[in-house]
């Protein structure tokens, strides 16, 4: 048995993933994550001493560069077309400094 995640651990993970969870959801999530993590155990049991990792399924790829030629992109209007809030041609977000009271 691997060491189980506690509700406190899961709360920390949720904070890092920027997902708000109710206490009820937190309890269920803790159960679910522990049961999924248990099934991942085979990964920890292989002898992988001399095995290189494969981060990408196709070998022999290199970075693709294109000529530095101007091509049309989104207009400002298109780029903002799905923004929940906008102001003066920019994305609008709540204040990030000053405790949010301004």
């Amino acid at each position, binding site marked *: 048995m691997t060491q189980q*995640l506690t509700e406190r*651990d*899961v709360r920390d*993970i*949720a*904070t*890092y*993933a*920027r*997902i*708000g*969870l109710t206490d009820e*959801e937190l309890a269920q*999530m803790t159960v*679910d*994550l522990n*049961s*999924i*993590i248990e*099934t*991942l*155990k*085979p*990964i*920890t049991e*292989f002898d*992988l001493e001399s*095995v*290189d*990792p*494969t*981060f*990408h*399924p*196709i070998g022999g*790829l290199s*970075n*693709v560069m*294109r000529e530095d030629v101007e091509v049309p992109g*989104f207009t400002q209007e*298109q*780029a903002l*077309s*799905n*923004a*929940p*809030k906008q102001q003066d041609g920019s*994305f609008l*977000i*709540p*204040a*990030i400094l000053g*405790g*949010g*009271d301004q």
Partner: protein
Amino acid sequence: MAYNANMNVADIRAGLLAGDFTAREVAEASFKRIEELDGEVHAFLELTKDAAFEQAAKIDEALANGTFDEMGPLAGVPVAFKDNMNYEGTHTTCSSLMLENYVSPYTATCVAKTIEAGGIPLGKLNMDEFAFGSSTETSAFGPTKNPWDLERVPGGSSGGSAASVAAGLACVTLGSDTGGSIRQPAAFCGIVGVKPTYGMVSRYGVVAFGSSLDQVGPFARSVRDAAAAMDAICGHDPMDCTSQYVKADFRAACEQGVEGMRIGVVPGFMNAPGLTDEVKARVSEATEALREAGAEIVEVELPHADAAISAYYVLGPCEAFSNLARFDSVRYGYCAEGHKDLGSQYEASRAAGFGMEAKRRIMLGSYLLSSGVYEKYYYPAQQVRTLITQDYQAAYEKCDVILAPTSPRTAFKFGEIGDPVEMHLSDIFTVSINIAGNGGMSVPCGLGSDTGLPVGVQLIAPQFKDENMFRAAAALEAVYGAAPIAPDFAAGKAGE
């Protein structure tokens, strides 16, 4: 003969050229069927009538001008797209509340190529939320139903793409496959579903789930229709740096036969604990059918296949966690009102916008990538990927294509599998192909003797030798015939 929903790509082409019907009539008949029958299936999330009739007009004009032959391999064919594919002016929701109101400002390459090839775009198709699931039950807009039995799931995540083809509501659709999301629903709905080799089809404009695993591919009721779609969408795209220059002719591959071809069978798969007897029996018959068609059957081993599912449930969530970080409630997507600081706006928006399975995978990825845990799971999973890839390479020294079940069982009932771990096991025969980046496709091979539901056999090709699997698939189709529309939706039901 007037157009009807049973027609395949070649029938439609012949009918248009003979003047039996117009592309406009194809579009009209398609929307009529969708309006009469999709209430039961719920495959479509949005219809694109204006684009369809505009495309139909172009095709009819080409027929009148004698330029029809210059149109692509899907000219006049009713097509539709999984709702994680951007198509300018349509909603692209990924079946998530997070993107309920998102309108695509551009078009994915696979969508653009399908339309350039002459496809008549009918609309966008339901899926598991952000492609997280194997049943479409996680769609925020309600599940899609299996046309063979409306009490059963169509599979997933590309459930709408499979069900629409099985119900004869579209001829060819596109889906995406990260761990089995094209092949498993194709098997459950009794049709053909293709996950090409990683890099064969551009993913530009397809909402990313697991970027080292995702691939786009077609669904159809016949192997040759799927081949026509592959010929249309395959190829390099400067907008997707993982897409490759490939030269392939899938329609030609279908005519090559399997004489002398070596088909690999994996005893470990055929004796897997969860494999049902009815699926095993049908897949064994399919193996025999290929032998009788002239192929040589050889046994091959994939010793690390057991590790694939755990490697997948490490890599998939880690990549999903990273990809879904883009949903920040600022640039697009759902934004919770009334928050005075950005952090609480993020948390509240992502809490309300994502469903439970999406949250589980994001959280799992977040945990697995954290310091100390990364070394225990993520890095070893990438090493296991090397072992799985080497297994396939060794196996392909002995064979040209591997044959396996697509899914351990036929379609299950709604709510039958509630435990996420058990749901993940339905991908047991499909995930290793994504991990190794090979091509794989599911082809119908009859109905299960216990459930009476469709069974799919999976053909797995070496990287970039996807034509091999089309050769074997066409040989199977010569035995089993092309897939029918599900009986309750047979053409004629919408009063054609």
